[in-house]
């Protein structure tokens, strides 16, 4: 039990003297009780030594100790004279107004002077109880400093949070993928969302060795898994018939210049669904001239089609189109892949695409094709129809690949940028995972209305995240730097305050979950929904 007493400060900073041995930590949640079944939740933002003994004396006596003169000296009443002062900030004011009824306010008043302070308890968080919200995503458990309150589970509104994008920033290895796995697992349990996961590490689905989403009891109804590799027996084959590719799928992806893009459109207009093969075959000068395309441009396009889509022609076989990868194919195969995926998403399924064997371009391009399809489909729904549709969210790793300032500026934008900017109007959002937030344009960062911030030791990155957060996190710089694996802060326009959480390790979490299922037990513990 941590305890202390308020000894000074103001609304910005409340100073608390810590009871000796309390071991307060950065990020600890504490409670200052009021007189009328009300209380204020405050959070430790910094800790400092204090002493009643003048600094000079302390310095001198340390010197004596170090230089071997310290014998026969001591500190009397050390716990009284040397102590820790915590600098804390009020997060939220809560007043119980009735049975399970609470009034919450952002704190505008100070808890009373010399008020004693205690650790937060489960009952202090009951005001977060679900407001009859059945559709939600589980993020983890409430955490006070590094102390995890396992019985207070943190959920966030599924539809709102996914529609308004989620940013998951952290340095490598802090548990981004683990968090997303846990979130996706919980989404498989709910209705109302279709999730497209571009998985460059093939880490979400799992296999015979590694636990993954495939272990979810509802995987048959709710989970699709695609892989371009034919050896992957559990996966549907990801092959896309090039007839389904349109020039605008390349928008901002693959590094096409505007002249080249224009040329692609000309090909498409003339040759319709065969346009890619026609580019690969090459055209004579006259034909090109008729289309208003320079020979040079056509050659670059041909080369790009060959390298990026691995589509070429076989001159020995009457210039027939040859498909050198399993991904982009011709003939009659792969014609329904895209529409199958779009259908699944519309049926509230989670679709994982193993892109571990794909190049960067291939991964983003496949994502672009699917996203563009779903986007234009949703865009044409009227608002009533849209209401009945599930929210679609696209999980993208290393988001700066498509949301970085440079790519967005140079390529004239891409579908991911479009979704980031206007997707919420059409119930389409992103779950953007990134190590580098600073390279994402500020308006886009600010548009990501939920940020699940994991540990980050790069101060530039922390600033970018803090600057664009929904709550004032200016005091959390140090806290974010010191977050351990799985520890996070949820800052969202849909949460009442920046909620510190710990996301359990996926393996343990699923083991527990499956154990509870098999013993037909209800999953115990109060479920808290924020939002």
């Amino acid at each position, binding site marked *: 039990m941590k305890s202390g007493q308020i000894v000074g400060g103001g609304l910005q900073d409340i100073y608390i003297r810590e009871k000796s041995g309390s071991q307060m930590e950065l990020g600890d949640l504490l409670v200052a009780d009021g007189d009328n079944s009300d209380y204020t939740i405050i959070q430790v933002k910094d800790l400092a030594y204090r002493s*009643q*003994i*003048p600094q000079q*004396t*302390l310095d001198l*006596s340390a010197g*004596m100790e170090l230089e071997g*003169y310290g*014998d*026969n*000296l*001591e*500190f*009397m*009443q050390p716990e*009284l004279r040397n102590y820790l002062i915590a600098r804390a900030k009020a997060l939220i004011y809560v007043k119980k107004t009735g049975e399970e009824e609470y009034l919450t306010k952002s704190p505008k008043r100070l808890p009373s002077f010399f008020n004693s302070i205690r650790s937060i308890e489960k009952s202090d968080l009951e005001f977060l109880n679900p407001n009859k919200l059945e559709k939600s995503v589980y993020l983890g458990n409430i955490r006070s400093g590094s102390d995890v309150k396992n019985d207070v589970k943190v959920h966030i509104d599924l539809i709102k949070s996914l529609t308004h994008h989620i940013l998951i920033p952290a340095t490598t290895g802090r548990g981004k993928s683990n968090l997303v796995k846990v979130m996706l697992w919980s989404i498989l349990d709910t209705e109302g969302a279709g999730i497209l996961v571009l998985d460059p590490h093939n880490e979400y689905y799992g296999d015979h060795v590694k636990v993954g989403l495939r272990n979810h009891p509802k995987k048959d109804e709710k989970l699709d898994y695609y892989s371009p590799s034919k050896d992957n027996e559990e996966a549907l084959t990801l092959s896309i018939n090039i007839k389904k590719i349109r020039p605008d799928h390349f928008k901002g992806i693959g590094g096409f210049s505007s002249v080249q893009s224009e040329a692609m459109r000309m090909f498409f207009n003339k040759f319709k669904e065969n346009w890619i093969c026609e580019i690969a075959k090459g055209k004579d000068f006259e034909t090109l001239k008729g289309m208003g395309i320079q020979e040079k441009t056509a050659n670059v396009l041909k080369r790009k089609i060959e390298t990026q889509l691995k589509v070429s022609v076989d001159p020995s076989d009457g210039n027939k189109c040859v498909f050198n990868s399993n991904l982009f194919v011709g003939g009659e195969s792969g014609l329904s892949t895209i529409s199958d995926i779009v259908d699944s998403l519309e049926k509230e399924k989670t679709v994982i695409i193993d892109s571990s064997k794909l190049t960067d371009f291939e991964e983003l391009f496949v994502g672009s094709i699917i996203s563009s399809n779903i986007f234009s489909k949703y865009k044409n729904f009227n608002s009533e129809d849209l209401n009945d549709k599930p929210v679609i969210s696209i999980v993208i790793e290393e988001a700066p690949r498509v949301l970085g300032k440079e790519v967005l500026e140079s390529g004239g934008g891409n579908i991911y940028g479009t979704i980031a900017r206007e997707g919420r109007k059409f119930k389409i959002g992103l779950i953007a995972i990134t190590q580098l937030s600073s390279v994402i344009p500020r308006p886009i960062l600010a548009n990501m209305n939920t940020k699940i911030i994991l540990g980050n030791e790069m101060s530039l990155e922390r600033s970018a995240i803090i600057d664009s957060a929904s709550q004032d996190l200016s005091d959390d710089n140090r806290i974010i730097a010191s977050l351990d694996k799985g520890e996070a802060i949820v800052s969202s326009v849909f949460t009442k305050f920046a909620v510190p959480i710990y996301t359990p390790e996926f393996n343990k979490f699923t083991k527990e979950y499956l154990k509870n299922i098999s013993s037909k037990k209800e999953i115990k513990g109060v479920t808290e929904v924020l939002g």
Partner: protein
Amino acid sequence: MQLNRVYFNVFQNKKLISPKSNIPCRIEFLSYTSSNFDHGNLFFETKFSLENDFFRKYLPLEKDLKIKAFERDFVLGNQLMMERMASMARRFSEWTIAEHIIDSELEEGDIIIKDGSLQTSHPNENQYVKNVFKKAKEKGVIFTGLSKTSRHTTDTRIPIISAIDRLSEDFKIPYKEWCYFPVPINKKTTEHKALIMVVKLNRYADTPFRFEIFKDQADNMTKNEILDLVSIIADYSRDRSLPGYPYGLIDAHLWARVRNEEILGYQAMLFSEITKLGMWKEINSHINTISTHDKLDEM
């Protein structure tokens, strides 16, 4: 007018312990000292103003603070004479409170250390001291005093403490902590009922101090018992903030010290009352506030 604050603490096994009885650790009162002529004699009188009347039982009687000024007092001059007379209230209350502490807080074999000398300097003080010493003897509580400064000098007018300190260095005595006693005192002041010692309680002490033990008790102690007593106090004098000075006294200074702003607060209240009485002009010119600092206050 004087703000008086008397504080005590009790340590056992080097830990601060709470009082057993309901005696407050900090007793605070305002005293008002005035001089009046009565039948051609100058008298000084002191009255108390207590915020908490419960404190009164710990204080000396006001009648004992009425003193006739003698020739030798006049030598001091008006200001000093007034200060000396005004200080009686605090000095006397130290004795009365000490008596209460011995009575309700201490056990046989306990030691009480008074901040300052056991010497008396006011005519009516003797009776109070006698009472305390009697109580101490009855209960077997050893009564001692520790002074940061000493008025005693050698024949050659060197302060006695520095003289002994110098001696200890000159003779390279092999002890890091030591005490010297008895320090002989002038025959004329036989009134002094204490064994006077000079003690260096810690090797890192800047200076030795004057230490006194109630004479009746010291006379019944062997040399070793006296050394044991000093050793116990030395064990309490190892605090890094002021090595060689008992920690209880450091703590007491912290709680008993009167800060300047407190004085100013009282001063403001006083002025406002005087103004209400329409006597401000008259009195203002006579007002002279004195705040006493000593070295410990800077801690």
